């Protein structure tokens, strides 16, 4: 068994005993349960969950990820004093946080929904997509958090950058897109908007999820454009591939920063 899997094994054991992680899973369980009970249909519950997931998952992954790596700083140094390869240690630390976080989200959402049962079989795909997108967002933003924490020596500054990254992706970005649409409304904007969507993983995840529902009104400008370009299953596949690229990019950058870092 290599170093990455060993670190992963003990990290997971550490984290599943953490109250934070339990609280995170419980949060989604309670919200999901309430939405299913009081929302009437499971389709409505799923749609509400999309918004909550897009909002909460990146925030928690970013904040939890940076704090986690900073707290593990001394322990990381201790492990690196042993014959341990840096790249594998980074991989172990990353998966050791990402997998439990993603699992907490998946269980928190899936268990109440499955207990109540989906209204009809047509919702199976949106349901699975919600879980996939939530897990992918966890993987993306944990990797971004690790990148930030590796490159920023000062903990407070690192946390600030993480929150700024969340604000940029979740709030500011949409605003900028809207402004761009207003200012350049006289020009053909389809292609720039399509590019803009791929540049923000949150936007990408939103479009991927809303493509699964009959809710075009919620797609927004970029999503509407996207639907023109990619119809049917191709849209789903393209956005899933783009999400995978979004997971890989910060991991690659993070590993590089970790390998060059002076502890």
């Amino acid at each position, binding site marked *: *068994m290599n*170093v990455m899997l*060993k*670190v992963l*094994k*003990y*990290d997971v*054991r*550490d*984290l599943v*005993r*953490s109250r934070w992680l339990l609280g995170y899973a419980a949060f989604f369980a309670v919200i999901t349960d309430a939405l299913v009970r009081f929302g009437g249909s499971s389709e409505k519950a799923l749609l509400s969950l999309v918004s909550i997931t897009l909002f909460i998952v990146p925030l928690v992954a970013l904040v939890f990820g940076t704090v986690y790596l900073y*707290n*593990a*700083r*001394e*322990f990381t*140094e*201790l*492990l*690196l*004093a*042993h*014959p*341990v*390869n*840096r790249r594998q240690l980074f991989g172990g630390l990353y998966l050791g946080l990402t997998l439990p976080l993603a699992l907490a989200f998946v269980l928190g959402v899936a268990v109440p929904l499955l207990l109540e049962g989906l209204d009809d079989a047509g919702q199976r795909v949106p349901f699975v997509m919600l879980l996939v997108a939530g897990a992918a967002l966890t993987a993306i933003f944990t990797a971004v958090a690790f990148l930030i924490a590796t490159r920023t020596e000062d903990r407070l500054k690192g946390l600030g950058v993480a929150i700024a990254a969340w604000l940029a992706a979740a709030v500011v970005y949409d605003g900028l897109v809207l402004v761009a649409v207003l200012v350049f409304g006289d020009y053909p904007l389809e292609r720039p908007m399509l590019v803009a969507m791929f540049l923000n993983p949150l936007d990408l995840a939103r479009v991927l999820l809303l493509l699964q529902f009959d809710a075009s009104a919620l797609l927004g400008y970029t999503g509407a454009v996207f639907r023109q370009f990619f119809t049917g299953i191709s849209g789903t596949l393209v956005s899933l591939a783009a999400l995978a690229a979004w997971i890989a990019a910060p991991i690659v950058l993070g590993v590089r920063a970790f390998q*060059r870092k*002076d*502890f």
Partner: protein
Amino acid sequence: MIEARGLTKQFGALPVLRGVDLAVAPGRVTAIIGPNGAGKTTFLKMILGLTRPGGGTLLFDGHPVNGDCRYRARIGYMPQLARFPENLTGRELIAMVRDLRGAANPLDDDLIAALALEPQLDKRLRTLSGGTRQKINAVLAVLFRPDLLILDEPTAGLDPVASSVLKDKILALRGRGVTCLITSHVLSELEELADDVVFLLDGRVRFAGAVAELKRTTRQVTIERAVAEMMRRGAEEAA
């Protein structure tokens, strides 16, 4: 065992090491001393490969310290601060490091008994006091029978009993030919441990040699007074 030639390091605009030339003899206890910010910890971290040299060369047993991590199988390290995954137990932590090492050779876990750690090993690490965690650090440092033992302020945070147990252990290991590098602010405790002294000041080696020689050149009877004398002379030269 360790040879440094013209070792430099800069953090941003701040030079920490400004050309360190040093040879650490095998089988001896070498104390690295110097005021805060003199570069002691940076030097130790370079030996461990935690920090990369800005310039110069660093040899471990004749081989340059570079990206390859295998040489660290021969090193035991006890850092200044002990922070571990909070929800693991001491026993799990030791098992984890052992797993990572893939260590097959018989372990040296005498310290667990000597430090009376056994009853603490099944508690979560979060609940242990700083001193107890530091004891676990000491256990981990000697566990794999290292050829080189690096201790950064080992007795800070340890009670007198634990601290003397650790010192006995260091002396016993030296008897078996283990090389030790120690930094400490408590110069009096180095008195009974150190064979050689390296005095770092402003990122340079100010003195390197046997304890007896240090005392002779400064005409003092204790390491503490000898170092004080040396710093005074340094200040005079600078003035």
